[in-house]
């Protein structure tokens, strides 16, 4: 395989006169073609679609036009980025030759490869990292607008409809951000190296999954200009069916994102199953890999339901089908079921890789083996299995199948058992270890604390009578922020600092990582404890104004939110400054034992010159050091 390294740089440039199509496509052609084709589709739809039928109770034309224009954007963008070249050539029976494949892999293209349909998993990992940061920046800005509006009683700073649109968009943008924040950057960049592979199983699908996300974002953000989404992130029908055309942006966003997730899930699962290094038995496979695979494997069966739920929502809006409309024989409960059968597993899609990443770091920073590897795997498997059996705890008060409330309460509360196993493993690893105090180490403690609060309040909510009082209140909002942000995001930020040296070749500025950590963690805990209190007192979620009696808790939350904002911005600056001129990172700055730390910086195109052979598990730190 070293021949690949020495291959003369013949492909790009040797025909400077007439550059082949594949070399001319990039993110700019994608946006250009996307916008042009959106306009063309919009114009054609407007011209040729029939008028609304007089007197019919569903008006479909405007939504049909909007959706067709967005489809135009989607096809234009994907064509413009070059996603169709591979399939097209395959259909013609002339698949890409070696030089073209090398071009696709981004060989010798410097910075330009990050703006192209590049297949190298390391490029895709960096692309995911950047898009995740952008998504969090957008979502975070919206969060601050929410908190400013809730800074004083009575509302009135933002219009109610604007407020609702901001809340819903914040929600769904952040959910997508947290879904990709670990499996995207680190699952793509680190995971293949960690298992000793040269790339993903399906490199072109890898590029596809990334560029689909880029294609999905503009429709979502455009919704602000078309009345916004007034439904919250869950877009319940029939409310969603009645919402202004902004809803179509949400639908497109989810449809495209769901495809991306399915593609990524198939790719990552196949890679791990088929491409682990020789000798890397399941017992010797690092726990992070289990986390990533559990996450995407859980997403694989449920995201098609998310996809379907939105296609049906689009049909109700644009062609007058009545899947969710009682007047036409449909049911709003259908939507809720489809949504939450996806929705609950999805929260573990987010959580599991975050916990697994911290489990990967715990042995490194305590210099001792992971405490009970098998318990960790049982925990992950148990959570994944149970998580598909609990969805109706989101629907206790909807009136759907009251007889099932009891059983769903049981399955939900059972999840605390495998969850407890994960706690046990982390605590066992830390127990009496000699700690190397870094920001990732502190993040393990932060996760244990935050996830304890998130999990215990989850058990309250899973209790049917208690949920009758708390459902729809700020208590629920505080619960899931403790899990998604307190646990999930904490793991992701630790991963960023931990794997930054391998991904960028530079160390993350130590001091900035600590400042960010404390600003975020303290701000977070103050903010969301305040939210628990007003939730318990009865403040409803997703309402722009509140009564004066909720004043105190809300102003505390708003002030603490500024601390979170400051911490995240310090972190952002840390990323930029460390990336551009941080200290040069050694090959293995943490003295870790997984394969990702055995490759040089920057990681060569094909990762390993000689594929490694694994002879032991990666946690052999022994007792001597502690």
């Amino acid at each position, binding site marked *: 395989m070293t021949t690949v390294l020495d291959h003369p740089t013949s492909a790009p440039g040797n025909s400077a006169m007439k550059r082949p199509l594949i070399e001319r496509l990039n993110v700019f052609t994608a946006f250009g073609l996307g916008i042009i084709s959106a306009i063309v589709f919009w114009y054609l739809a407007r011209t040729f679609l029939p008028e609304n039928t007089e007197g019919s109770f569903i008006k479909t034309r405007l939504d049909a036009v909007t959706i067709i224009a967005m489809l135009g954007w989607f096809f234009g963008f994907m064509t413009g980025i070059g996603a169709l070249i591979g399939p097209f050539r395959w259909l013609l029976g002339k698949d890409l030759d070696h030089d073209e494949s090398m071009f696709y892999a981004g060989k010798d293209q410097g910075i330009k490869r990050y703006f192209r349909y590049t297949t190298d998993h390391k490029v895709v990992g960096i692309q995911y990292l950047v898009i995740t940061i952008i998504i969090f920046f957008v979502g975070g800005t919206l969060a601050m607008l929410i908190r400013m509006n809730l800074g004083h009683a009575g509302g009135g700073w*933002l219009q109610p409809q604007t407020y609702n649109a901001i809340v819903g968009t914040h929600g769904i943008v952040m959910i997508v951000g947290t879904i990709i924040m670990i499996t995207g950057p680190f699952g793509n960049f680190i995971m293949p190296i960690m298992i000793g592979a040269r790339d993903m199983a399906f490199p072109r699908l890898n590029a596809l999954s990334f560029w689909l996300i880029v294609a999905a974002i503009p429709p979502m953000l455009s919704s602000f200009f078309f009345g916004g989404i007034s439904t919250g992130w869950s877009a319940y029908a029939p409310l969603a069916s009645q919402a202004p055309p902004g809803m179509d942006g949400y639908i497109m966003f989810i449809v495209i994102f769901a495809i991306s997730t399915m593609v990524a899930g198939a790719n990552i699962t196949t890679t791990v199953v088929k491409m682990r290094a020789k000798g890397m038995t399941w017992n010797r496979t690092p726990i992070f890999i289990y986390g990533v695979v559990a996450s995407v494997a859980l997403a694989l069966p449920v995201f098609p339901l998310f996809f379907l739920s939105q296609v049906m929502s689009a049909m109700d809006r644009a062609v007058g089908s009545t899947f969710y409309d009682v007047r036409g024989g449909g049911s709003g409960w259908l939507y809720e079921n489809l949504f939450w059968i996806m929705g609950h597993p999805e929260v573990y899609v987010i959580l599991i890789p975050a916990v697994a990443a911290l489990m990967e770091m715990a042995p490194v920073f305590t210099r001792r083996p992971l405490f009970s590897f098998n318990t960790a795997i049982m925990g992950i498997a148990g959570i994944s299995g149970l998580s598909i059996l609990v969805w109706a705890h989101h629907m206790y008060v909807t009136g759907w199948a009251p007889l099932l409330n009891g059983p769903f309460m049981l399955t939900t509360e059972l999840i605390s058992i495998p969850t407890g196993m994960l706690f046990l493993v982390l605590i066992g690893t830390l127990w009496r270890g000699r700690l190397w105090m870094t920001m990732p180490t502190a993040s393990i403690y932060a996760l244990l604390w935050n996830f304890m609060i998130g999990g215990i309040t989850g058990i309250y909510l899973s209790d049917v009578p208690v949920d009758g009082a708390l459902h729809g209140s700020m208590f629920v909002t505080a619960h899931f922020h403790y899990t998604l942000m307190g646990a999930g995001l904490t793991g992701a930020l630790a991963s960023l600092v931990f794997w930054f040296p391998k991904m960028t070749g530079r160390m993350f*500025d130590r001091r900035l990582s600590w400042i960010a950590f404390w600003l975020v963690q303290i701000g977070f805990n103050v903010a969301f404890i305040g939210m628990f209190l007003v939730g318990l007192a009865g403040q409803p979620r997703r309402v722009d104004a509140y009564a004066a009696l909720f004043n105190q808790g809300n102003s505390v939350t708003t002030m603490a939110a*500024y601390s979170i*904002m400051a911490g995240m*911005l*310090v972190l952002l600056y840390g990323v930029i400054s460390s990336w551009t001129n941080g200290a040069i990172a050694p090959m293995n700055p943490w003295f870790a034992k997984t394969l990702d730390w055995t490759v040089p910086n920057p990681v060569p195109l094909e990762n390993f010159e000689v594929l490694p052979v694994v002879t032991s598990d990666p946690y052999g730190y022994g007792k001597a050091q502690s």
Partner: protein
Amino acid sequence: MNKRLVAALGTVVLGGAVIAGLGTYVASAKNDSRVLAATPAGTMETPQGKLPHYTLEMAAYPDSMAGSHGKDGGVHADWVTYGPVTNFQVPAHSAITITIKQYDSGARLNNDFFATVHGTIDGTATINGVAVKSVDPEAVGHTFTVHGLADAKSSLFVSVPLPAVPDEKLPPTGYTTNPTTVTFTFITGDAGDYVWNCEYPCGDGTTARFGGPMSTQGYMAGNFHVVNA
């Protein structure tokens, strides 16, 4: 101080500025903050004794050509609206008489509760001079509903239905010359900030007709300030 820390602080300030700028821009999209104060009208004999008396006059229109949206009707000329403005200010511990001229048609309420008069003296309102306790829920144009908990102690709830102007009395263009006049009197408590809105789904077709003017201040909703005289 270390250069990096200063730059990090700069990033925080910059990020805060971006958010503040965006927030100001988004918030400026809301309608005008003009407030109409109640006019003194001597004193009034009420069940709570002799109280200072104030009056307020307003109207409900089938579009935005009247009210505070300007000659051309503003951005949403076809939206139903209250006028002349939608923010009101009245004194605390006083009798307040509100007169509403109702120019709009209407249909069935979602909730019959709002066909009944709530929170006024005697629980009555006069409609074209006739005192009533409720109206036909099948033909309501709008409601004027003030509500809220200003703080943990005082609350205010006043809700009065405005009957629909029958279709045959509506001219094909322009406003009817014969609006329905609804008058009611209630007594305010301690000072505080409340909101009011219409409870008849008269919105623009989105969100079960609770969208558009129903979800936007300056049309079918606004502020109701009770202040110490």
